[in-house]
């Protein structure tokens, strides 16, 4: 779009000054470090340390921290910089409540929109999940579950819901507690995920939403049981 009729001074005569161009790269780097678990909840983040570690200016680091604060990954500490946010159990429950609203929406849209090759992709993911559970490969199963949730979001083509869910997903690494996994939970989780896959592949929007709700209610139960035992 051009700048015709701008009330504000136009950008045309000026080259964009260095501006915020460097900041996204640093926020990406710090975000990745948090998501990989190398910066842990409650860890202090000192601007000058980050500037050294990521080879950036302090003002660029400050801007990156602001961005990550907006995303809910860190929090400002008055006069003392920032720290990685810790998500309490109560908040984890609230996050799950919101997922419980948005993921069924995505699943029902995915059921309406997935084409034949995307359905084959979903089935393949389901088969891989079965194998992981048979092999008692918990890490593999967890990775495949993650892939399924990501794929369903993508198939929904609902960009707004997707953006929100991705943010919430990022925050989920900030739990300080560990989910207690009941014996038998892995297989239940498999059944829940396969039900989602089957509903989407059948093009049944209502069933896809219901299956997603059932799965997330089970996740919510697991969270609440964690609360009861800790």
């Amino acid at each position, binding site marked *: 779009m051009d700048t015709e009729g701008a009330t504000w001074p136009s950008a045309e005569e000026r080259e964009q000054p260095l501006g915020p161009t460097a900041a996204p790269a640093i926020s990406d780097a710090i975000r990745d470090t948090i998501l990989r678990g190398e910066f842990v909840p409650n860890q202090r983040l000192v601007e000058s340390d980050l500037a050294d570690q990521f080879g950036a200016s302090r003002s660029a680091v400050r801007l990156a921290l602001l961005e990550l604060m907006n995303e809910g990954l860190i929090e400002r500490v008055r006069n003392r910089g920032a720290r990685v946010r810790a998500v309490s159990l109560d908040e984890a429950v*609230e996050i799950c409540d919101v997922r419980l609203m948005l993921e069924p929406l995505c699943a029902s849209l995915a059921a309406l929109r997935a084409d034949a090759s995307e359905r084959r992709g979903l089935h393949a993911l389901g088969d891989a999940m079965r194998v992981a559970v048979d092999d008692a490969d918990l890490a593999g199963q967890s990775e495949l579950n993650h892939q399924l949730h990501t794929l369903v979001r993508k198939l929904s083509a609902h960009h707004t819901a997707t953006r929100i869910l991705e943010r919430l997903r990022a925050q989920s690494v900030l739990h300080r507690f560990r989910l207690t996994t009941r014996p038998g939970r892995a297989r239940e989780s498999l059944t829940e995920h396969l039900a989602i896959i089957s509903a989407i592949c059948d093009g049944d929007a209502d069933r896809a939403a219901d299956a997603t709700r059932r799965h997330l209610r089970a996740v919510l139960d697991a969270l609440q049981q964690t609360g009861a035992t800790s």
Partner: protein
Amino acid sequence: MENRETLVDRLRTAIVHGELFPGQRLVEVDLAAAFGSSRGSVREALVMLENEGLVIRERNRGASVRPISLREAIEITEVRAVVEGLCARKAASAIGAEDRRRLQKLAKAMRAAVKAGDIAAYNDISQESHHVIRELGDQRTATEVLERLRYPSVRYQFQVSLLPGRIEEGLAEHVSVIEAVASGDGDRAEAAMRAHLSSLVGSLQKLSELGGLPRTTLGRTPAS
């Protein structure tokens, strides 16, 4: 800190009112001069507004006002329907006598605004009633999600309220949401809120069939 809040607010108003228009490049030095603040503050304000979906910052290209399509406004309203539905459910189970009166007062004021044909007042009261319900629901995550969705679709919502019959429809929907929340029935409150915002989605689709926003009123909030 205070300085930044003010600058964010002023920039946001300029964007929401269309003084800074969709696609327009936002050059730090120019904004700093126009708003009488430092480049550092402008830069921070742009990060905040990016978070609210009003600004886009691209590597090597700088910042610009993010264009919001009608399709995106519809998506936003679809998300609001389910997330505000959650808030309404929680609000219904938390509501006390005083809040009940507060909501009922809003319903009454809205009825008067619609009767007087005062669209600006209707929009203000509508916004306040959504805000009160969210507050009663007391959901931190849902609130953050909704705060971020608040501004991008404002101008479309205003256009919707100009559609013939829309504010009368909206009034009836708000009243049923308020009654449901006040009754303490969570299921009913969630359903009423979803129905209200789904109806808004329908009106946005109607707007889309009419060809979107009339160019002349784009982004302007008419005086009441």
